[in-house]
């Protein structure tokens, strides 16, 4: 098979990170790195996946990129493997620098690692894993899209993804405590409390720009009477873009800092905010890199936490959210963890009218932002949004049934759906579950 031809419709996009990295490559270095990763970092798993695939193409129809690009086979999951990993395997690493540029672009910006295709593969091949192997190789070759690499650099320097300094983190929490006290005078955001039932962790964008999410979480904790705390040290950010750039060593460091922060404070368990990829990194990928099959301290996602609060009657709704809602099932917490029925329980507890989008639950279409794709930044936005026409159609259909608000309990899904709503003129409102709970709950203070 020849090296992949660049099709007119998916020609290579210029990116400084990809370009700068590619320029420094030599054929010897490429061959050495590919062989090193394939020989020393992969094993039976990769071999079984590669040997088992019968090239049937059933994965194609599962992929939003394929469906949204007029069934272009180069966007099918198997097609993406063919243009990247199969070629590397076949040639035992003898591929060109330009090949690596495209391989990195395909693995980082044309696949969301959402694993919908694995559900349609007759053998259940985890194609997301194969794309992560490609990303790992590209990381070791220094060919990574600039925006997401910058985010990974922030993780490495600060242990959070948005260059937030220690004093800024503490100051932001105290500020939100103060603002929330205007509404609920007795409210506290306890810092560094030892032995609390819950340590609450968030992602970088929350203190950086979306501090209202911390405010809302504090109101919910306060009203539910939870014994909780937040850390005043690095380790508060549960997100992990290094997991997506292929920087596994750094991914491990981040997860370790996160778990150790919770253990230092002797917290009984970690409750995470509404983020999907961070969840994948703590219960699946990062913990395993650190050799823990399950996290060393119990971790639950916001959806599980809200579910408990409603089941135990710790939060009461004064008046249900009255605009008809639909729910987007994020890949990492639904296909990855099966939290879809809990999410529906919370939606039904808080909203007057719930309209399912179709397909839903583990069959839901991806937002096209996840897997680090939105984090690759502006150069790839058009490809990402136009590569998810099927999501727009799915939302239009839910809208036709009356849905006005889309609930997306994941930050990346939020970003992706916001762009889709805007680009396709959907005119729908977008919310986190926490937004709705905060808005409709009884607040006694």
């Amino acid at each position, binding site marked *: 098979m020849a090296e992949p031809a660049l099709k007119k419709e998916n020609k290579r996009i210029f990116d400084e990170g990809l370009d700068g990295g590619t320029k420094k490559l030599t054929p010897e270095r490429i061959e050495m790195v590919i062989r090193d990763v394939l020989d020393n970092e992969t094993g039976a798993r990769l071999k079984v996946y590669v040997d088992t695939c019968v090239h049937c193409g059933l994965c194609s129809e599962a992929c939003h990129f394929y469906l949204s690009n007029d069934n272009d086979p180069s966007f099918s999951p198997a097609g993406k493997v063919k243009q990247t990993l199969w070629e590397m395997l076949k040639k035992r690493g003898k591929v060109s620098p330009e090949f690596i540029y495209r391989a990195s672009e395909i693995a980082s910006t044309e696949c969301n690692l959402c694993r919908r295709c694995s559900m349609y593969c007759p053998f259940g091949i985890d194609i997301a894993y194969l794309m992560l192997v490609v990303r790992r190789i590209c990381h070791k070759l220094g060919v990574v899209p600039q925006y997401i690499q910058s985010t990974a650099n922030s993780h490495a320097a600060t242990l959070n993804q948005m260059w937030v300094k220690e004093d800024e983190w503490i100051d932001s929490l105290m500020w939100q405590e103060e603002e929330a006290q205007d509404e609920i005078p007795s409210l506290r955001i306890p810092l560094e409390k030892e032995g609390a039932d819950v340590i609450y962790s968030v992602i970088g964008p929350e203190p950086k720009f979306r501090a209202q999410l911390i405010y809302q979480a504090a109101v919910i904790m306060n009203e539910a009477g939870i014994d909780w705390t937040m850390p005043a040290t690095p380790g508060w950010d549960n997100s992990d873009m290094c997991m997506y750039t292929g920087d596994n060593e750094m991914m491990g460091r981040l997860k370790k800092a996160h778990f150790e922060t919770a253990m230092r404070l002797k917290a009984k368990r970690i409750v995470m905010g509404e983020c999907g990829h961070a969840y994948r990194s703590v219960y699946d990928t990062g913990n395993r890199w650190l050799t823990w099959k399950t996290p060393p301290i119990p971790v639950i996602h916001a959806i599980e936490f809200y579910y408990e609060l409603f089941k135990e009657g710790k939060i009461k709704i004064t008046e249900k959210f009255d605009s008809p809602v639909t729910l987007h099932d994020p890949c990492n917490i639904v296909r990855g963890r099966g939290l879809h029925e809990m999410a529906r329980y919370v939606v039904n507890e808080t909203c007057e009218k719930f309209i399912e989008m179709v397909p839903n639950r583990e069959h839901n279409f991806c937002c096209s932002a996840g897997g680090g794709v939105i*984090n690759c*930044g502006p150069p790839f936005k058009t490809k990402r949004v136009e590569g998810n026409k099927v999501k727009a159609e799915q939302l239009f259909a839910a809208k036709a049934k009356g849905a006005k608000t889309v609930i997306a309990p994941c930050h990346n899904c939020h970003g992706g759906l916001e762009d889709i709503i805007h680009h396709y003129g959907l005119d729908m409102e977008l919310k986190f579950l926490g937004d709705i709970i905060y808005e409709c709950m009884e607040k006694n203070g």
Partner: protein
Amino acid sequence: MPEVEFQGKKFNVDEDGFIDDYTNWSEEWVQFVKQEEGISELNDEHKKVIDVLREYYEKNGIAPMVRVLSKVTGFKLKHIYELFPSGPGKGACKMAGLPKPTGCV
């Protein structure tokens, strides 16, 4: 990079609609983003936010935390979102001529 023209001025923007270089920022750019963001009227408070963002960016090469923005302008978080409905990281940074922030935004 796509080019947009507004009030006789041309700007190069990235695919998220952020300006290519903050030194190419001008009053016309502010008016253009105002229209893009659907902000009905620009007042002194918008200008104050933009001034703070630009000054901070020139000094630090990064957008400030919304906490810093609030401290320097004296505006509460809610008010910053009233001024820029798409938020400080998107609408306000865009209008101030900063690049799109990195991260899950």
